[in-house]
């Protein structure tokens, strides 16, 4: 059960292709466009309805429910996006050439960056109403889930075994039936795993998106995030405790009632026909399967689902679509159309980027952001190294002991889902109390939530080490450093790289909130790109927001392409045990 890296179809050895560059242009252009469009919308914002929030613990269940609802809404949107965008990219190689790199770039844009760049746009959709902010919150959750899920679905679609597709076609299933009966089920295990992983990450962002300041307006959406923001404002320590406890319960329920049952259920769609690997267990799923009431409810839902689809299915002709290969003439025409579209997109991206830069583009400002980017990068790398020093040995130790792994693995997954920002106030209080240097001591917050990815990936890697190889190592008398360097570390390397890459991406995201932390009126800040973006967001300075986001995305893209991907390929080639 691993989140796979976006190994791209026809992955070339080149670091960046012309399609990547075009994708960068398009994404940046769109961001600049949104930021630009938002400027004109600033005016009517001041009069937003204030929602009364209360720090009384009695309100916490309601707030928790609202936060969860936002999560689910974001998930539904992400699924919709996945089924359309990824399908398009996979089915049309012509579209895929650009759609896939765009996805890759979008994945590198800091998620809170999307919020900063689009919040005003969403607020303007429902002027003066909280609804706009709700849209924005759901959109943030969407951006934290959709890319990942779409990638997974895209990859699954590209790897559906040819014989299964042929079987489906030779039994004359229509394209629509093939999608629901073959392609979606085939993609299910990967999709569910990625969905649950991104949902875990999503708790962090949903709580952040509930308390947003735009310029002078502070918008509070009733929910866990707003509650904790208010508690920080009022320096209410007990309230922070309540919030952490509530969130703990919410994540527990999410983990037991959604994450584990879904992953366990999706195991039946696993393609390899061999029995053997024990599917993950879930008491909730067992209960659902055995309880007559729940089972009949389930049957009712699946029947209604089919009934819902039936009109569409019925409308499709019985005769399977005639198979045609495009003639060279048609191919050429489609090529021309796609190139025209691509050129138009490129022109749009370039135009927006140029227009953005022409409005007070400042080389000095760019140099400042680059310098801050380097600072944040240093922090991320040092933290990843430190976290690795701790969690790799622990992960290997745990992974080699199945009973320990059975206990630790779910705990690590649970901790990865827990929104680390709820714990920030505690760290801030400590820093203030002991008068520590925020430049150093705020940094660990960036990796607080994401270090667990390293741990549970390493555990997964260590537990898949073949027993015979372990016996061989023992038989040869490998001990101490030799055992680690020749056996254990190489064996877990591919898994470790996956975990470290995820953790690094998460740390960049967290930088925006971790480099500036508040406790009442006390503000701690660390020098870095995250703090720069956070400042710009608070000031409502769209120019600096877009610049900050662009530079941060650039750092992430370059680090991924130049550092993580080559390491991953190397590890895959040299150390994959199979």
């Amino acid at each position, binding site marked *: 059960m691993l989140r796979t890296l976006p190994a791209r179809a026809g992955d070339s050895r080149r670091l960046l292709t012309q399609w990547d560059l075009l994708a960068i242009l398009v994404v940046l252009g769109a961001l600049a466009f949104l930021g630009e469009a938002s400027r004109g919308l600033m005016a009517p914002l001041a009069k937003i309805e204030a929602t009364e929030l209360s720090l009384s613990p009695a309100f916490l269940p309601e707030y928790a429910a609202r936060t969860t609802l936002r999560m689910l809404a974001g998930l539904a949107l992400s699924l919709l996006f996945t089924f359309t965008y990824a399908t398009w990219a996979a089915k049309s190689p012509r579209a895929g050439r650009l759609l896939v790199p765009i996805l890759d770039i979008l994945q590198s844009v800091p998620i809170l960056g999307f919020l900063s760049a689009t919040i005003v746009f969403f607020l303007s959709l429902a002027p003066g109403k909280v609804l706009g902010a709700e849209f924005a919150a759901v959109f943030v959750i969407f951006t934290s889930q959709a890319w990942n899920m779409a990638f997974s679905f895209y990859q699954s679609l590209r790897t559906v*075994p040819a014989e299964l597709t042929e079987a489906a076609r030779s039994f*004359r299933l229509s394209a629509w039936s093939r999608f629901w*009966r073959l392609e979606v089920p085939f993609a299910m295990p990967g999709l569910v795993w990625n969905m649950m992983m991104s949902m875990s990450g999503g708790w962090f962002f949903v709580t952040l998106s509930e308390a947003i300041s735009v310029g002078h307006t502070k918008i509070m959406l009733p929910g866990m995030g707003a509650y904790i923001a208010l508690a920080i404002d009022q320096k209410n320590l007990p309230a922070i405790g309540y919030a952490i406890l509530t969130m703990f319960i919410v994540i527990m329920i999410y983990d037991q009632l959604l994450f584990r049952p879904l992953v366990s259920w999706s195991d039946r769609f696993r393609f390899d*026909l061999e029995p053997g690997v024990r599917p993950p267990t879930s008491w909730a799923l067992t209960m659902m399967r055995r309880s007559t009431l729940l089972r009949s409810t389930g049957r009712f839902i699946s029947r209604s689902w089919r009934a819902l689809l039936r009109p569409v299915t*019925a409308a499709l002709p019985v005769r399977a679509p005639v*198979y*045609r290969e495009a003639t060279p003439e048609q191919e050429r025409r489609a090529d021309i159309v796609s190139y025209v579209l691509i050129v138009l997109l490129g022109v749009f991206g370039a135009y927006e980027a140029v227009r953005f830069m022409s409005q007070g583009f400042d080389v000095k400002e760019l140099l400042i952001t680059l310098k801050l980017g380097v600072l944040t990068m240093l922090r991320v790398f040092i933290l990843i190294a430190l976290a690795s020093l701790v969690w790799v040995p622990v992960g290997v130790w745990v992974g080699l002991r199945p009973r320990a792994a059975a206990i630790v693995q779910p705990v690590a997954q649970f901790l990865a889902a827990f929104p680390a920002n709820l714990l920030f106030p505690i760290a801030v209080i400590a820093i203030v109390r002991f008068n520590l240097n925020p430049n150093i001591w705020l940094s660990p917050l960036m990796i607080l939530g994401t270090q667990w990815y390293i741990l549970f990936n390493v555990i997964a890697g260590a537990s898949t080490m073949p027993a015979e190889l372990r016996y061989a190592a023992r038989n040869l008398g490998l001990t101490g450093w030799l055992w680690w360097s020749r056996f254990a570390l190489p064996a877990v390397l591919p898994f470790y790289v996956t975990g470290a890459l995820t953790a690094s991406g998460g740390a960049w995201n967290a930088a925006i909130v971790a480099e500036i932390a508040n406790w009442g009126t006390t503000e701690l800040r660390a020098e870095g790109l995250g703090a720069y973006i956070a400042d710009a967001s608070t000031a409502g300075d769209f120019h600096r927001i877009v610049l900050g986001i662009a530079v941060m995305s650039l750092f992430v893209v370059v680090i991924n392409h130049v550092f993580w991907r080559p390491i991953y390929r190397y590890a895959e080639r040299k150390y994959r045990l199979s």
Partner: protein
Amino acid sequence: MNAVTPLLEVRDVVKAFPKGDGASLLVLDKVNLTVREGEIVGLLGRSGSGKSSLLRLIAGLSRPTSGEVSYLGQPVEGPAAGVAMVFQSFALFPWLTVFENVALGLEAQKLPAEEIRRRSLAAIDLIGLDGFESAYPRELSGGMRQRVGFARALVVHPNILLMDEAFSALDVLTAETLRTDFLDLWGAGQMPIKGVILVTHNIEEAVQMCDRILVFSTNPGRVVTEIPVTIPQPRDRLDAAFRELVEKIYVEMTSKRVQTASELAARGQVEKPAVANLDVILSNHVSTNLISGLLEAVAAAPYGGRADMPVIANDLMMEIDELFPVVEALQLLRFAELEGGDLTLTADGMTFANAEVDERKRIFAKHLMSYVPLAAHVRRVLDERASHVAPRSRFLDELEDHMTHEAAEQTLRTIVSWGRYGEVFAYDDQHMSFSLENPT
């Protein structure tokens, strides 16, 4: 149905796949085939002979580059209602039960639920899957899975059943049981099908099951010969007529190979085109262990340097897809000659078989340099360069002018492993480069 109209007709079919550089790779060249009612027709050939591509054209899963496929007189333009297929890898949907897998084809036709149920259960019953209706494929053995494959194909009441190496993923005993069960049902007329096309690389399977066998050549696929099988069913594998026919097909298939191999060898002598000629042989990766193994087997008693192909194939339990590439490698390296279905070792082949490791490597290196132009080419390039290092991509690019990327990769893999064994050059996978230095 008009008695004169054949079930299926394939006329002058050509299939070519585009290669990277705008050229195209010819897979099927002017193939003709007619299937009449009550016939089992076998398409026999090695991998790369295009027989599976032909089956997919007939199934309507792809379209011929030129020529025509017609079913009951109608051109095939997509998956036809009366044509069903059984796959080598079973191609079952792992998330559907046996019953749901079988019912899928009927659901696609949007038949009433009651009819789907009745017909599915009947097909499951017919093929001997009673009691397994609610099982998932992963719970079944290979043989049971392929029975589901058959039930799923038969339930749609096809006129023609296509089998794509349907028994080759099964162990010997299971395959035999499934074949005889199928022939029993076919002989008793219990199946709704009117004709069968069977793709296989197993000569005995073809002789056992077919009324007519079309033998395919490789690269491009052509029908070399058509052999009618008149032995009455049930056929006994030990029967003299059966053995004779198997032997005849072996000779038929290998005589074609001899010609190709001698052509290749003749062209191998030519100095200039260094890489072009050995596509077929080198792209079937044959390890030096297999080469040594076959040489030893043929050199030893009871063969003493000369072996009958069907006999040694049986003895070593190798199918033609496994045996032929090794034999071709032996021919290419001039370690053996093949004539009239007999494999005879050359003098060097005998010496190699009886030699110790170092002597073997010496002989191998000599033959590699003399008879495999690509190996000589690599060595020459390395000798000419001051650094004695050349990147893999240099040769890969050269090869890709003549063959697909996959074939070029395979060819280089063979050259690397042969070159390493003969210690003619070294290869570093980490840097993807050839060199003359062996790591110490």
